[in-house]
């Protein structure tokens, strides 16, 4: 939210209604928190906080990359499939004869190689989209379809179960009581927010999304910027894939990251990043993901069935985006 650059009227009187429309997701989050503190039993506990943050972390990690992609006016449907690839590769590496004979090296490689390979696939998305001038939906649809297939072919569709405390630290470990993936999530959000706000690359991302032709004319390397945001999105998906298989102590390429692209896109949309590009807020995506998670938690904790929670989730997404639409001076 804070990092969304907008041209505001300086010195205009404070408009309460406009404020609530602009910060609809944040307001809703606070209201929901207050509601839970009052109604839901055992809500104010570290355990509740940790459960919710652990569940939301993978969505936020993917949303960080997705926010940058959407800031350029693109979209990335392939993130779930890239998670499946990275999730399939890591156990293959540390369960291989090499990984078993050199555990330290094997574990290090199990962290680095899958993420790097997911990043390469992301870079491929970017290359495909810029080189052939393909619409991002179609361009990343290719990797959405083929990527999960690659993960399934790698593992022959089998479930890989494992027990590897060193590797699983990324999903099960804690630093000062804070789950490891929550730290990764916060670090990525901070890094991306800072990049968008204060670096040349960040300004280039926004200018490409705002007006691609103008950006190109003013010397922004449009194709290269786009390739990089898709690569970053791939890297984020790769990390998220590792987290998911660590939590599950098993990797199933059929299921890892299934539907993640839509969860991440929903978080970005609820967070207030418009799909037209040129504006982006990574912190907003974090808030959006937290809001969706907390709505689901609130409903489940108060005995509403999961299926009804899905319907409410759909309504929340539509409602949040609708309220932002109304907030815009058009």
């Amino acid at each position, binding site marked *: 939210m804070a990092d969304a650059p907008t041209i505001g009227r300086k010195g205009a009187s404070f408009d309460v209604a406009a404020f609530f429309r602009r910060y609809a997701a944040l307001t809703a989050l606070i209201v929901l928190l207050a509601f839970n503190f009052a109604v839901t039993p055992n809500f104010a506990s570290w355990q509740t906080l940790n459960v919710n943050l652990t569940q939301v972390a993978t969505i936020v990690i993917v949303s960080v990359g997705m926010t940058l992609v959407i800031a350029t006016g693109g*979209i990335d*449907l392939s993130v779930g499939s890239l998670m499946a690839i990275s999730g399939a590769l890591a156990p293959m590496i540390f369960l291989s004869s090499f990984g078993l004979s050199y555990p330290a090296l094997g574990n290090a490689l199990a962290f680095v190689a899958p993420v790097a390979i997911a990043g390469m696939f992301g870079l491929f998305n970017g290359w*495909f*989209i*810029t080189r*052939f*001038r*393909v*619409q991002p*939906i*179609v*361009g990343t*649809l*290719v*990797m*959405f*379809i*083929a*990527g*999960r*297939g*690659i993960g*399934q*072919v790698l593992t*022959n*569709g089998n479930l890989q179960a494992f027990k590897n405390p060193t590797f699983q630290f990324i999903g099960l470990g804690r630093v000062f009581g804070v789950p490891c993936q929550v730290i990764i999530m916060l670090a990525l959000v901070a890094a991306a927010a800072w990049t968008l706000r204060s670096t040349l690359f960040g300004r280039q991302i926004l200018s490409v999304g705002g007006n*691609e*032709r103008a950006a190109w004319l003013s010397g922004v390397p*449009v194709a290269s910027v*786009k390739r990089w945001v898709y690569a970053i999105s791939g890297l984020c998906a790769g990390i998220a894939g590792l987290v998911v298989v660590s939590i599950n102590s098993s990797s199933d390429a059929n299921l890892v990251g*299934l*539907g993640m692209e*839509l969860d991440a*896109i*929903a978080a970005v*949309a609820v967070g207030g990043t418009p*799909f037209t590009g040129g504006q982006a807020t990574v912190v907003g995506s974090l808030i959006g993901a937290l809001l969706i998670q907390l709505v689901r938690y609130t409903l489940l904790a108060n005995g509403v*069935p*999961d*299926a*009804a*929670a*899905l*319907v*409410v*989730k*759909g*309504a929340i*997404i*539509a409602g949040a*985006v*609708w309220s932002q*639409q109304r907030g815009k001076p058009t």
Partner: protein
Amino acid sequence: MSAATANAAPPGRRLSLAWAARQRVVIALVLLILFGALRYEHFLGAYNVLSVLRYNSMFALTSLGMCFVIMGAGIDLSVGTTAAFASVVSALLSPYGLFPGLLGGLGAGLAVGAVNGFMVTRMNIQPFIATLSGMLVASGSGLLLAHNQSVSVSYDTDFTWLGQGDLLGFPTPAWIAAAAYVYGSVALNFLSFGRYVLAVGGNEEAARLMGLPVDRVKFLTYVQSGVFAGLAGVILAAQFGAGQPAEGVGWELFSIAAVVVGGTLLTGGVGSVATTLAGVLLLGLIFNVLNFENGLGWISLSAYWQSVVRGVFLMVVVMASSGAARRVARSA
């Protein structure tokens, strides 16, 4: 990027680009069928042809609805879960007979489509997000109605005929899909609705200034897509003997892929119903050919290869149509 490029190009070039892509998909389909017919003994046998048609009729229906939505410059992510929701409703109504089951499924699809259309046209929510919400709502409603389980259909009525039966030697679902495509073709080429959809998709502002009922046209494309998805759900329930609330995952992206392979541009304003059908058959037949290839015993590709092959195929189609675009640009 491609959106801007396509909009900047003169309409003639966009049309010829789409035309080139369309010829390719038909040629590719003919080549694949020839390949299969020459290589595998039973490829063109009645059993294989009829089962391919029976199974792919559901995807043909969702892709047809998707085709109109995309021609109107929208997108519909909800078709898969709408079909699942409709399959539950029709399974629940199947004890009352064929028509109650059929109408229930169609009604469920119509309801989801109307919600989608309302969100897009009245609430001004981008189609991607609006139909993403619609997707969740349909999925949740189906699961709620079915109590998270599949609902078996009644075999006492003739409801299952819609999915398992035959008419004049062809599967009933294939007849339904064929009728839908005939309607789609006529609607696109000869009815004002089809012309309006293309006009709205090509340039919404211009269409509005011309006095076309833009919002109503867009609304109707979503309703129509919902109804076709509902019909696909009825067939799903009738064919497999159960309403399946958890089915339909990924159908929307399969349908989008089929429409794109069929040469319809995602930017809207251009499209073809017949080549969408060719796109559906092409993507469906790839799986079929892989099965036959495994049957020959030379190689043993797991079913998982089919998604890799489909993805690569989509990539080749997109690259080929991009090459056609550049050639047209040079010659212009």
